[in-house]
């Protein structure tokens, strides 16, 4: 399914517990360069936790996480550096409310990467144009619609030039009429060859864009495959039940 040299992320027997609660159980996952992987599963099945482990916002209990060929460990790596390469977009946007749209975008490049402010502004403007918000530079987030906020959040993550992007239900806090604009931005990104891991309930998006669909249940990966295979011919009964419940 993959050749070793264009591996972006490899997860091996990953386990994660919160106290007594065993949330991720021997999870294996492989993401190649330019892959779009969609993660589906019931609430509480561990999708967010998996994404957060990939971004080291949560620390695994055991197993390996290999990013671009490097086995990343807390003891040997500066995790801040790793996070620079792994962008994340959250369900609730998490824009910085005390900064304008442009300030949101240039904050990390300037403060973390040391990009010159002028350069960061130039790149920031380009990114905002790309997500269709070139006219909102100096506006505060509170003035934006949910869909606009999420597009700014995507631009903010892109400003760090990450190699992978993680999306945790990026459209599920949005009013239905605003979902489309965010999905369009994400499709665009996929087309440009960005490697993406996306947790979403938007099955249309998954069918159209995903290279792989991964179904999680109770902390385990139960089924994985091409979207049409998983959606139309699920092998596992649990997958069938889940798909019936949401479609």
């Amino acid at each position: 399914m993959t050749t070793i040299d264009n591996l972006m992320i490899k997860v091996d027997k990953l386990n994660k517990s919160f106290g007594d609660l065993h949330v991720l159980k021997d999870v294996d996952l492989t993401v190649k360069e330019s892959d779009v992987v969609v993660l589906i599963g019931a609430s509480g099945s561990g999708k967010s936790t998996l994404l957060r482990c990939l971004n080291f916002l949560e620390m695994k209990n055991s197993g390996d996480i290999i990013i671009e060929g490097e086995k990343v460990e807390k003891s040997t790596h500066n995790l801040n550096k790793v996070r620079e390469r792994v962008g994340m977009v959250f369900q609730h946007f998490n824009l910085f409310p005390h900064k304008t749209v442009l300030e949101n975008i240039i904050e990390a490049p300037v403060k973390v990467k040391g990009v010159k402010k002028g350069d960061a502004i130039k790149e920031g403007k380009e990114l905002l144009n790309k997500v269709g918000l070139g006219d909102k530079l100096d506006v505060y987030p509170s003035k934006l619609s949910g869909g606009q906020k999420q597009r700014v959040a995507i631009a903010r993550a892109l400003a760090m030039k990450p190699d992978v992007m993680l999306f945790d239900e990026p459209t599920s806090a949005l009013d239905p009429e605003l979902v489309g604009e965010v999905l369009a931005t994400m499709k665009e990104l996929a087309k440009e060859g960005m490697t993406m891991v996306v947790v979403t309930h938007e099955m249309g998006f998954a069918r159209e864009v995903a290279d792989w669909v991964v179904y999680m249940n109770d902390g385990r990966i139960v089924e994985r495959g091409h979207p049409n295979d998983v959606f139309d011919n699920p092998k596992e009964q649990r997958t069938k039940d889940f798909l019936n419940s949401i479609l």
Partner: protein
Amino acid sequence: MESLTHFFNAFIDSYPIFLKGMWLTLELTVVSILFAIVIGLVFALLKLSNIKILEWISNIYVYLVRGTPLIVQIFVLFFGITKLIQMDAFWAASIALAFHNGAYIAEIFRGSIQSIDRGQMEAGRSLGMSTSLTMRRIVLPQAFRRALPPLGNQFIIGLKDSSLAAFISMSELFNIATTLGSAKFDTLTYLLIVAVYYLVLVLLLTLFVNLIERKLAASEK
């Protein structure tokens, strides 16, 4: 009527002295509150540090300050600590007030930092920012704005509490009132006069705090 005339005459005769006292009251208040803000911020961060021993230090500090009357704290600092370090009444009073207000301000900051959505910290970290950078650039500025109304309130409390410095011989407003009162054998009149000064100061401070709040609110939305 007669006593009203008496009050106004006394008010007018005494105002140059009271203005001096007011100046000292303001100095005490401003100096102690500025220190208190620094102290409060430090102890709030200690408390939130997730390092048991630092949390403990912060808890003990807050408990000691909240568990004893301010006047005891002022006297202890004046007669005690300053035995080792030579310190005049102004600094003893300022530091006592600073540590006292600091404990309350620490709780204000702790609350306001905790009230900032966890997602803010996560968003910062997911961009490769370190915890302390995210704290400084993302969380604290928001927490500070949210802390402003209770801080303003604490500022007013600090202003009023500075009256206790009178008992370690600071010639601030209240001391002037009682000293004049006993010199003129008319304590009540001078107490009422000083009450007017405090009411005006508190009113001005309240307006000032409201102004800043409105400015900040306007700049963001």
